């Protein structure tokens, strides 16, 4: 593989300590708190409506990238009528450049489990799963021990809920919630048609709440500190903090919990190496922002890019001027050509066409205007693909080709 991947350093505690003092690091999620039982008892003593309303008023949105309001999701699942319901923690962290969930599960898993248990209590689920990324199998034994302890706490609190770990097998697409259900049901990991949505018809066709690891950890903070404190952080529709996986051309790669609403310029000032030419926000399926737009780009759900929300899965890859954006894009497209589930036409064939297309233009086999045809294709992929991932696979193509067109041709 190329340079991008070689520079993914694993963050160590030492490195985190070496961080510059002026970084707005919040340390809300990673604060080591040992009060699971207290928080659980306190929350369970309140009415379901109160807890849901807290979540809704906190403004917490899904941290996997799609940004669905968490409180609403729980509410919908609570209202669905079914004998069996499920809570699933999506720990299939597969987006290139994202490695925050693994750190959350390593250092504060009890917060995630508490979030799951409260959710289960509210919606009426007895069974929960952590869908753990195949590559994170090293976390399994440690997690199982913690789950065992947690089951003890649940018994003391009188909560009839059990959590199991389901190991993923390495397919990127299985991070998409409905493909994840299919995978858990023993089928090919392929996204389903929506509607119906998981809160009505999820795992085993039962109402299911599926939340990202980080989202569940945030619910713990909201339960502990109240929605106001959470809402005080961030801007407008992007409330709270966000854990970012920072990689690429940065002297301080690692995992950082930052407040929403900072400009990309501020981010690059803090994390860049002084020569940043672009930041890929949201991983391979996210957007590439060029230097000229750092100032105007705000990190949060209400990004101004293309009039759509800026994906906020948490991956921030910084590229300096030594990087070829053609190579960067080629790498992303290689990834998608391999990792598309292959089910729907726009994603399966579209990704292949984008890859072959930039190769052909580079080699001079296609004229540079062929890029315009591919930009139209990218737009068609965005509006016609079956799942959220398929709709976003062309984002990197569009944003890189629009901003670094000359690098594609020469």
């Amino acid at each position, binding site marked *: 593989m190329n340079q991008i991947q070689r520079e993914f350093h694993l963050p160590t505690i030492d490195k985190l300590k070496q961080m510059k003092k002026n970084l707005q690091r919040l340390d809300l999620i990673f604060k080591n708190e040992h009060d699971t039982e207290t928080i659980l008892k306190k929350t369970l003593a309140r009415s379901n409506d109160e807890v849901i309303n807290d979540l809704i008023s906190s403004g917490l949105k899904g941290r996997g990238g799609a940004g669905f309001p968490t409180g609403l999701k729980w509410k919908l699942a609570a209202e669905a009528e079914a004998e069996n319901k499920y809570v699933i923690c999506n720990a299939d962290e597969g987006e290139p450049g994202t490695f925050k969930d693994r750190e959350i599960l390593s250092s504060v898993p009890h917060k995630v489990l508490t979030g799951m248990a409260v959710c289960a209590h509210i919606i009426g689920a007895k069974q929960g799963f952590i869908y753990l990324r195949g590559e994170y199998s090293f976390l399994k034994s440690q997690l199982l021990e913690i789950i065992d302890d947690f089951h003890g706490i649940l018994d003391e609190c009188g909560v009839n809920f059990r959590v199991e770990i389901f190991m993923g097998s390495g*397919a990127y*697409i299985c991070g998409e919630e409905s493909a994840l259900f299919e995978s858990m049901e023993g089928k*090919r990991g*392929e996204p389903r*048609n929506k*509607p119906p949505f998981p809160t009505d018809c999820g795992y085993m066709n039962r109402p299911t709440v599926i939340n990202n690891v980080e989202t569940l950890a945030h619910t713990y903070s909201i339960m502990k500190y109240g929605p106001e404190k959470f809402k005080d952080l961030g801007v407008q529709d992007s409330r709270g903090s966000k854990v970012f996986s920072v990689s690429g051309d940065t002297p301080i790669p690692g995992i950082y919990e930052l407040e929403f609403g900072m400009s990309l310029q501020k981010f690059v000032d803090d994390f860049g190496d002084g020569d940043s030419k672009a930041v890929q926000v949201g991983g391979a399926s996210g957007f590439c922002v060029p230097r000229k737009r750092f100032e105007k780009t705000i990190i949060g759900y209400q990004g101004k890019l293309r009039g*759509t929300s800026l994906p906020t899965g948490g991956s921030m890859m910084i590229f300096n001027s030594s990087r070829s954006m053609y190579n960067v894009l080629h790498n992303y497209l290689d990834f*998608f*050509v*391999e*990792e*598309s*589930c*292959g*089910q*729907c*036409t*726009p994603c*399966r*064939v*579209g*990704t*292949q*066409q984008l890859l*072959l*297309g930039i190769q*052909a233009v580079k080699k001079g086999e*296609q004229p540079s205007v062929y890029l315009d*045809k591919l930009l*139209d*294709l990218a737009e*068609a992929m*965005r*509006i*016609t*693909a*079956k799942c959220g991932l398929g*709709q976003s696979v062309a984002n990197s193509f569009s944003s890189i080709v629009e901003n670094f067109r000359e690098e594609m041709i020469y």
Partner: protein
Amino acid sequence: MSDKINLKIDNIAVSINGGSTILEAARKINIRIPTLCYHEDLCVAGNCRVCVVEQSGSDRLLPACAMPVSEGMEIHTNSMKVRNARKQIVELLVSEHRADCTRCYKNGKCELQELASEYIVGENGFIDLVAHKGYTIDNFSPSIIKDDSKCIRCQRCVRTCDQLQSISALTVAHKGEHMKISSFFEKPMFEVVCTNCGQCVNRCPTGALTEKTYLDEVWSSLNSDRKHVVVQTAPAVRIALGEALGMPAGEIVTGKMVSALRRLGFSSVLDTDFTADLTIIEEGNELLHRLKKVVKDKDDSVKLPMTTSCSPGWVKFIEHAFPEYLPNVSTAKSPQQMFGALAKTFYANKIGVEPENMVSVSIMPCTAKKYEADRPEMRSSGYKDVDYVLTTRELALMIKQAGIDFASLPDDEFDSIMGESSGAAVIFGATGGVMEAALRTAYEVVTGREVPFENLEITPVRGMESIREANIKIENVLPEWDFLEGVELKTCVAHGLSNAKKIMEAVRDGKAEYHFIEIMACPGGCLGGGGQPIPTSPAIRKKRSEAIYAEDRHKPIRKSHENPEVMHLYEEFLKEPLGHVSHKLLHTHYTERNRY
């Protein structure tokens, strides 16, 4: 979900039951939305994305086939955004499809080709992906050719094989650019558990799955002076052939078909219906024989329920899936193979042709019949009993190649002998037909009276319900059948192999007790066979079924045992049902096969 939902499609108001899709609503007001992966017989996949439509106020397009309607929706099926997106998707599909149309067997009958021409996919398409992929063609099966280079991954075949047939011979393998429709361990189709039913062929929108054609072989036989070419036509061909030649579904074209076959140069134009009647005599007597052994002689070695054996897809299915029940399958050959065995013995002798100079061709609604004719057991005449099997579609192609204007042909009659048939034989083409035909004969043999149903129509076994049961009480029997007095004959009819599987599981688990089970591998029976004209749908199969029962009603002879040519055959050649000659020519045995 049955409350009415009101929406607008292309500014036309439509009201439809809740739970319906946008596609259904559009069809209701005669707006055509193109589809590829959608098929009426199958669950919705929503993966080709050709049917995308625009909803006012929504940025992304919606798949009409999968999206339920909601109150106040405003849908646009022909906006600029929709047309652009649709064209791109068609272009993408064309780019991964070997668009070698003029050389393709499905040329002119390909749904992708139709869309490509509608959306004017010209020279400025995307880069050809086929060249990058090193495809091979699987043409080892005697029935089905699989050409992945023409596959557009709509998964209709996968859903057909899984949902309708519960076989899953075809399934999705790999992901991303390598995603393909594959078989177990990517082995050729003839090595895996495939029943050759051809339902996948019927539903493939392109030329990726086609029947193996034997047109050249048949033409060359017809052109040979030394060869006497006999042809037999299955019951379900005459009610569907017209569809492949531009006529509406449900047209009975028996007479025109006979004319056409003569014009094509077949020396003897005969009828599989004749041996369908013969099958009833042999199989009906076998049933009575088994009943006698079980009820009267208490013979444990004889198995009930007895199942039919005329559907080669079903036979191969049970050989793979329930081999422990092979002793339950009637040993009577299918009408096609009975015909083949008689053609090169009895008939050849009758007309004074050396069997080695006879070529036996059958026209079948079926692709599995091609496999059946190739089975090593099917050589009881000393030669290959049936040399070539053509589907209804292939016959239509021959007629076109010969320049025959089918619609204007006069009606003609089958040759005698082996051309006469009863109404009971005609209904072999519909699910429940063999059962009805067998009951018409068996009941009369045992009681001396006609079956107690008005106009001989045993309605409980008719219809398109997936599994149907009928119990007939046998009373006032003839003296020699006294052991059957008061016995309630329990019968069951199923079509589609997923239903066959249910029945066999119920039998295995002791949850169902039957004496006689009719199973047809294909939905609707032979009329919905894998060799029938494309497309197929519940409505089309209903029309074909109505035509079959109409043909039965109009036949002067309605019961197999009253077919004079069959009676003559027994007198002159076979002597008696289940007799020595029958045993040699008309009965067979089965082979246990692997389950993977």
